[in-house]
């Protein structure tokens, strides 16, 4: 992060970035610096995870195994999945952008527990170091680590369990910190219903992190105990039950998909009104639907297990409950569209990504009911239809929301403007590449191509070649976007405090904000969505 040609007023202009040297980062208590460290780390894992995805697509160019062994392929998709889930998509928005913007949004100088915040980052770092250490005998179980295979596999499951436990602990402590921050640190006049909607979704996210994560922690502890001590909870030969592992695992891992998507929905709720110059439509509906999603998310974990041998009654109940999740989700989408209606829409890069979110997430969302319904689930279970569905929600949804947030807040975080032309070109490549890669997977999935195999029937060849070509375009777009970020950091034009004419509090701070955010704690008198009215 060099600054060019601003030596005179350098210290002042660089805000919270003024201090230099690794100590000023490693021991910082500034939520903005901690957020920035999370962003650097998680984006690095996003790129590594993406590299594994490209290796998978390379192998799938041909119906027979060609470049890698079956074992290597298994390792690649396991690493792709677990890195993307545990080291990128879960921490990226909450711990990265959340850390940076929650205190700014509520008009506070920092989170409630700055030391705990720093500890969370270093626990996360310890976790990913242990996970990297487990690569001496890399996992080949898939990111779900199902027993009995994970209990018997020669891979370093015990080490990996410890690493994931640490990452989970970090996630819990971050969620706890944010909950308390939102409750206790709001500026005078910042009532609950004047909070930006990003905060409502972060609040719902934090609840899930705090309540669901300990369960997966103990699940991994028991898996390690099964391997080390012969504890038999998941082992049928000792009276245990492998399906119990699945219940425990999904009790966390289903709610956690809302840890992934809710913060992205929060970003969309910020970006859409700013670039439509209209007040957000249905503030209360969007706010409370976040809480509804968090609540319902805890009741539907069984829909991952329709073919695992649950009782027909349990299957029916979980299927029934699953459809309820569609309601608060659709509430959000309709309110965003209603916000767009008759707005003065401009298509800057954050808005492009936000609209992409709505479009792709709608596709991902609408393919969900096919999987939630019992009859079609049995047909589509473990096919590429599932792969396509969750990439449309997780990458088309969460990652596009993350990109929207990065482009929207880049001037605030760095004090530099991005090259808008390059940003739009990168967006176009990502949009096209994404759809070419993943839409074809819906088609081969409905025709019965199973996921997680290095080989496939020759009749799926054409679609797989198309998908691989798409993945190259997608990768080119992402690399171009990253290059644009680096260029922006190095020689972007200085950013004004409020380049998007937005009304939420972070834009009242300098770009980049100074160490304690505000000269004086602001007093809040209105909600942050009064666009197009007298105030904007």
């Amino acid at each position, binding site marked *: 992060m060099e600054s060019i040609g601003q030596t005179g007023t350098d210290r002042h202009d660089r805000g*919270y970035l003024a*201090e230099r040297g690794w100590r*000023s980062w490693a*021991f*910082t*208590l*500034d*939520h903005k*610096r901690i957020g920035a460290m999370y962003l650097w780390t998680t984006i690095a894992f996003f790129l590594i995870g993406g590299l594994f995805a490209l290796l998978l697509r390379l192998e799938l160019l041909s119906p027979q195994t060609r470049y890698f062994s079956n074992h290597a392929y298994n390792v690649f998709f396991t690493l792709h999945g677990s890195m993307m889930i545990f080291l990128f998509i879960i921490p990226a928005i909450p711990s990265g952008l959340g850390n940076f913007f929650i205190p700014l949004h509520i008009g506070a*100088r*920092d989170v*409630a*527990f*700055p*030391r*705990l915040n720093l500890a969370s980052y270093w626990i996360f770092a310890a976790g990913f170091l242990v996970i990297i250490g487990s690569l001496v005998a890399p996992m080949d179980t898939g990111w779900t680590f199902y027993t009995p295979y994970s209990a018997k596999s020669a891979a370093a499951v015990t080490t990996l369990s410890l690493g994931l436990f640490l990452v989970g602990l970090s996630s*819990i402590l971050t969620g*706890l*910190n944010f*909950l*308390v921050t939102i*409750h*206790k*640190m709001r500026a005078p006049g910042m009532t609950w219903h004047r909070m930006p909607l990003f905060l409502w979704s972060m609040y719902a996210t934090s609840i899930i992190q*705090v*309540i*669901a*994560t*300990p*369960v997966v*922690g*103990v*699940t991994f*502890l*028991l898996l390690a*105990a099964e391997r080390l*001590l*012969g*504890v*038999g*909870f998941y082992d049928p030969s*000792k*009276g*245990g*039950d492998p399906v*119990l592992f699945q219940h*425990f695992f999904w*009790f966390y891992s289903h709610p956690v998909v809302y840890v992934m998507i809710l913060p992205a929905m929060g970003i969309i709720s910020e970006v859409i009104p700013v670039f439509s110059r209209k007040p957000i439509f249905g503030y209360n509906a969007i706010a409370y639907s976040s809480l509804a999603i968090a609540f319902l998310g805890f009741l539907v974990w069984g829909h991952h297990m329709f073919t695992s041998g649950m009782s027909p009654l349990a299957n029916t109940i979980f299927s029934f409950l699953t459809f309820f999740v569609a309601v608060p989700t659709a509430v959000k989408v309709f309110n965003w569209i209603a916000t767009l209606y008759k707005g003065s829409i401009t298509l800057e890069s954050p808005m492009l990504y936000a609209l992409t979110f709505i479009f792709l997430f709608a596709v991902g969302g609408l393919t969900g009911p096919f999987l939630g319904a019992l009859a079609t689930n049995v047909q589509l279970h473990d096919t590429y239809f599932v792969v396509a569905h969750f990439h449309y929600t997780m990458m088309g949804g969460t990652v596009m929301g993350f990109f929207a947030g990065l482009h929207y807040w880049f001037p605030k975080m760095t004090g530099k403007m991005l090259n808008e032309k390059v940003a739009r070109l990168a967006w176009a490549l990502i949009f096209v590449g994404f759809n070419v890669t993943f839409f074809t997977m819906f088609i081969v999935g409905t025709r019965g191509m199973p996921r997680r195999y290095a080989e496939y029937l020759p009749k799926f060849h054409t679609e797989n070649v198309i998908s691989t070509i798409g993945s190259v375009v997608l990768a080119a777009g992402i690399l171009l976007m990253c290059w644009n970020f680096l260029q922006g950091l190095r020689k972007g034009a200085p950013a004004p405090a409020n380049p998007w004419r937005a009304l939420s509090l972070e834009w009242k701070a300098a770009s980049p904000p100074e*160490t*304690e955010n505000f000269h004086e704690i602001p007093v809040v008198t209105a909600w942050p969505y009064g666009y197009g009215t007298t105030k904007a």
Partner: protein
Amino acid sequence: MTGTSSEHHDPAVAFESAKLGVWTFLATEVLLFGALFTAYTIFRMKYPELFRVEHAKLDRVLGAVNTVVLITSSFTVVLGVDAIRRGKTRLLEAYFGATILLAAVFLCVKYVEYAAKFHHGLYPGTNLFFSLYFMMTGLHGAHVLLGMAVLTYVLVLSRRGRLSENYYTPVEMSGLYWHFVDLVWIYLFPLLYLVG
């Protein structure tokens, strides 16, 4: 160092924040143990006979002794919190010292119990009942150990003169945590030792 925290907001808010934080953390802990209690419920319903036979192999007397020890330690923690509210740091140190001592007694008794089980060839992998017994009491024991560390930290703070009737947040928070550790045992003792 940048962005120091606590001097910015007023002490009452800091205290309330810490309290909410600890309660939220305890909610997390409930879920952590919750998975094990769920496993207990499932396997108990599935294998009632196994639980009836195996639970008799536990030493009820030592279990009862430990229950008394832990409840007493919760009592001394309360007395410690009460002492610091009245500004009596020496008294706080005495009560927290006693709590740490009682926790150590608890762990020693646990050690004797574990050793006896191993001696009789009962290990975590022996059967589902002993899997549950060792995992639940083991996880609880780890919490006792962590609690001892936290209480010791508070003791050191007090020795250094950092606590008074105006600032005793760490005392109150460590007390909350210790009551939770105690409460878990209140459930573990009857479920494992008493119910046949």
